[in-house]
C-alpha cells in the first residue's frame, strides 16, 4: 500500500444564487475534480447548494489566535464607526 495520502481540501458552498460561498467542511481527494465530485456527494445531498468551491487546505493562510487581541481589539474603542454613536433628536426622520 502506498504511504502517499490524498491532500485535504476545504469546501465552500453557495446555498443559492445571490448569497456568498460559505465554508462547510473539508475532505480528501486526489485532485480538484475529484474534490468537487466528493463535495457534491458529501455536502449537498439535500439541495444545500448551487455552486461549490474547493481549495487545497495548504493554500489557506490564517491569523494566529495568539494575535487575536492586537488584531481585532482596536476596533472596540472606535464606536464612532457605528451609527448609534451619534446623538440626534428623536424628531429627526429617515436617517
Amino acid at each position, binding site marked *: 500500500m*502506498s504511504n502517499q495520502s490524498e491532500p485535504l481540501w476545504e469546501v465552500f458552498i453557495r446555498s443559492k444564487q445571490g448569497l456568498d460561498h460559505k465554508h462547510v467542511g473539508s475532505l480528501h481527494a*486526489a485532485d480538484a475534480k475529484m474534490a468537487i465530485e466528493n463535495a457534491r456527494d458529501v455536502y449537498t445531498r439535500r439541495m444545500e447548494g448551487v455552486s461549490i468551491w474547493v481549495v487545497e487546505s495548504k493554500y489557506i493562510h490564517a491569523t494566529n489566535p495568539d494575535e487575536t487581541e492586537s488584531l481585532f481589539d482596536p476596533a472596540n474603542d472606535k464606536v464612532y464607526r457605528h451609527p448609534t454613536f451619534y446623538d440626534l433628536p428623536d424628531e429627526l426622520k429617515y436617517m
Partner: protein
Amino acid sequence: MDEAKELERFDDKIEQEIRIEPKDWMPDDYRKMLIRQISQHAHSEIVGMLPEANWITRAPSLRRKATLLAKVQDEAGHGLYLYCAAETLNISREEMVDQLLSGRAKYSSIFNYPTLSWADIGAIGWLVDGAAIMNQVPLCRASYGPYARAMVRICKEESFHQRQGYEILLTLCRGSEEQKAMAQDALNRWWWPSLMMFGPNDDASSHTAQSMKWKIKRFSNDELRQKFVDVCKEQADILGITIPDPDLKWNEESGHYDFGKINWDEFWNVIKGNGPCNKERLQARIESHEEGAWVREAALAYAEKKKKSELVGSPSN
C-alpha cells in the same frame, strides 16, 4: 505565554461557552479525549453501514430500497464529517483508519449484532438511531467548534433515519400476525443492546466527569438512557408491541419509567470483541480497504501525471 496562564484562558472560555477552535491552545488531555471520542464516533458511522447494507438488495419495495440506500449513504457522509473534525486535532486520516482496522480503536458495540430479518432495519432506525439522536443532540453544543458543527449537520439528517425505521415497524405491526411477530422479535433482540449504547452506568464511566467538566458531554450516560426509555415506552405502545422488560413500569414519584437491570457482562464481552459479528464487521472493513487500495493509488497517480503535463504545457516552458 506560560502554560498555567494558557490553561486559565482555556478554562475561562469553557466557562463562558466560547467554542474552542483548532488553532487555539488546549490541554493535551482535552485533545486526546476529543480524538478518542470523535474518531470512535466516525468509526461507528462507517461500521454502522454494514448491518443495514445487508438488506439493501432485499428491501421489500423500491420505496424501501431507495430510502435505505439514502440512509446508508448518509452514514458514510457522517463518518466523513467526523473524520475531518478529528483531523483538525492533528491526527491523520490514515492513522485513524489504521487504528480501526488493527482493532485498536473501538466503535459502537451495537453494530456487532446481526440483522436477521427485514424488521431489524425498522428496529435499527427506531431504536439505534433514536438512541444516537438522544446522544448527539446535546453534542451540537460541545465545546470544540469543529465537532459541534459536524454534529449539527448530522442531527439534521438523522431525524429522517429514525422516522423511516419507525414507519417500517408501523407497517409490519399493522400487517399480518406473522409480520407483527417479526416486529416484536426485532424489538426483543435490539432493545437491550440499544440501552447499552449510552455506555456504562455513571459510577462506572471513567471519562464522563472530565468530559462534562470540559463541556464535551452535557448529560451523563444514565440521564440520557432514562430519557430514551421514557420516550420509547410510548412509541412501543403506539406500535402495539411490548418492550422485553418485566420490570418496566411508571414511577409516579420520579416521573420516569423504572426499568430492569442491564446485562453489563454482555456489554463488556461485546466490547472485548466477542459479540456475534465483531470479526465479520472488522473483516469487511479490512477487505474493503485493501480491495480499494488500487483505486486510491490510481487516483493519486493520475493527479500526479496531470500536474506534470500541465507544467510541460504551460506558456512559461
